[in-house]
């Protein structure tokens, strides 16, 4: 079985209009740059995108928003993207905002074969509307369901051709959770190596969760807030 594909265009084969995608990253940190660019080129549309953030106007998921390929965003924070806010307030774009921990756990649950869980986050708020509430040990919790998605698009630092992944620093974020959660998981890596070259003690995502892998190119790794001391 060969999981290695040559590039992002080949990796996204099978992603069609109306599908639900998970995209790893926190802000612009650890986003699957190559795969997003390939989606923009492909012109696939009416996508539902599950991603903590929505990129910035001209980078990351912002590129998919500019070309109006996104029907719905499921995120926790979208404050860095003016085009997003414009499309949302004008009604062109649907959005579901969720607590960040709930977003993460809904990914984890999907990848762990757990259909739903209870969390206190969002109890008594708009987020709880229409959701089952239960009390445990005197505290109120709302039921949240595992995400269902067609593809998960993740970015890792190193990967081997079997699909084992290692992430770097805070570029890890949602990537390993989404890698577990996609029906089909596509991983792009900065460095693709042969099996055996990664120390099994330090692998974050086991290969079983990854269906396609390729070595990305030309990583821009844009920084949102360049702060120095």
């Amino acid at each position, binding site marked *: 079985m060969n999981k290695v594909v040559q590039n992002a265009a080949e990796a996204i084969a099978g992603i069609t209009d109306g599908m639900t995608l998970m995209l790893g990253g926190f802000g612009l940190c650890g986003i699957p740059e190559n795969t997003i660019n390939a989606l923009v080129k492909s012109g696939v549309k009416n996508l539902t995108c599950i991603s903590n953030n929505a990129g910035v106007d001209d980078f990351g998921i912002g590129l998919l928003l500019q070309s109006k390929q996104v029907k719905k965003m499921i995120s926790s*924070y979208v404050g860095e993207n003016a085009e997003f806010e414009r499309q949302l307030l004008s009604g062109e774009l649907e959005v579901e905002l969720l*607590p960040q921990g709930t977003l993460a756990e809904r990914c984890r649950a999907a990848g762990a074969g757990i259909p739903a869980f209870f969390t206190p986050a969002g109890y008594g708020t708009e987020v709880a509307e229409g959701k089952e509430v239960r009390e445990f040990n005197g505290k109120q919790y709302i039921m949240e369901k595992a995400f269902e998605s067609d593809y998960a698009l993740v970015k890792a630092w190193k990967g081997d051709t079997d699909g084992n992944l290692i992430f770097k620093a*805070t570029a890890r974020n949602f990537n390993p959770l989404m890698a577990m959660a996609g029906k089909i998981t596509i991983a792009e890596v900065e460095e693709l190596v042969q099996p055996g070259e990664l120390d099994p003690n330090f692998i974050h995502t086991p290969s079983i969760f990854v269906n396609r892998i390729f070595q990305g190119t030309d990583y821009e790794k844009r920084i949102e807030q360049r702060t120095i001391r």
Partner: protein
Amino acid sequence: MLTKEQIAQRIAKELKDGYYVNLGIGIPTLVANFVPSDIDVTLQSENGLLGMGPFPSEEEIDADLINAGKQTVTTLPGSVFFDSATSFAMIRSGRVDLTVLGAMEVNDKGDIANWKIPGKMVKGMGGAMDLVASAQNIIVAMQHTNRAGESKLLKELSLPVTGLGCVKKVVTNLCVMDITERGFELRELAPGVSVEEVKAATAGTLIVEGEITVISF
């Protein structure tokens, strides 16, 4: 009146040795600059870093190493990275000792609003709803009034709620208040600020009793 830096400096006095602390975006981030040198405090950043260090030098900048405000940061000896589910496991299970957040509004029951202005601004709650639902110890850092001079310390919230009954203490440019079942209890005044000024700027129930000290640094 306190400057933003002084609000952060006052909140830093609440830190204790061994605390794990999550600092929100804005004034709360500044608290890190005032950690007393004789105690160990570990900063948790919910994007997946425990043991957050200061901003990097030009040479140290790493696009893969940021905090929850998307600012470039550094690690310290003992720092650790983890995924977002593990990060919120720390938060939900109550292992973070102190959370400092900004707010648009707080009411006298400890409810907080800080994620949305209907029809105008949609930024999202980020990790705030998870934090306020689980943290045992939440301090809000905020300006006492908005730009129009209206109180942000209310009887009832006008904006969508982020969490109910969770705020324990508020530090504003005017004063320090604890939130108890009776309402906002005034504890300390900023230098040069009178009780009357705090009363005029507070729309929620304000309790003025006992010794009220003046904040000094």
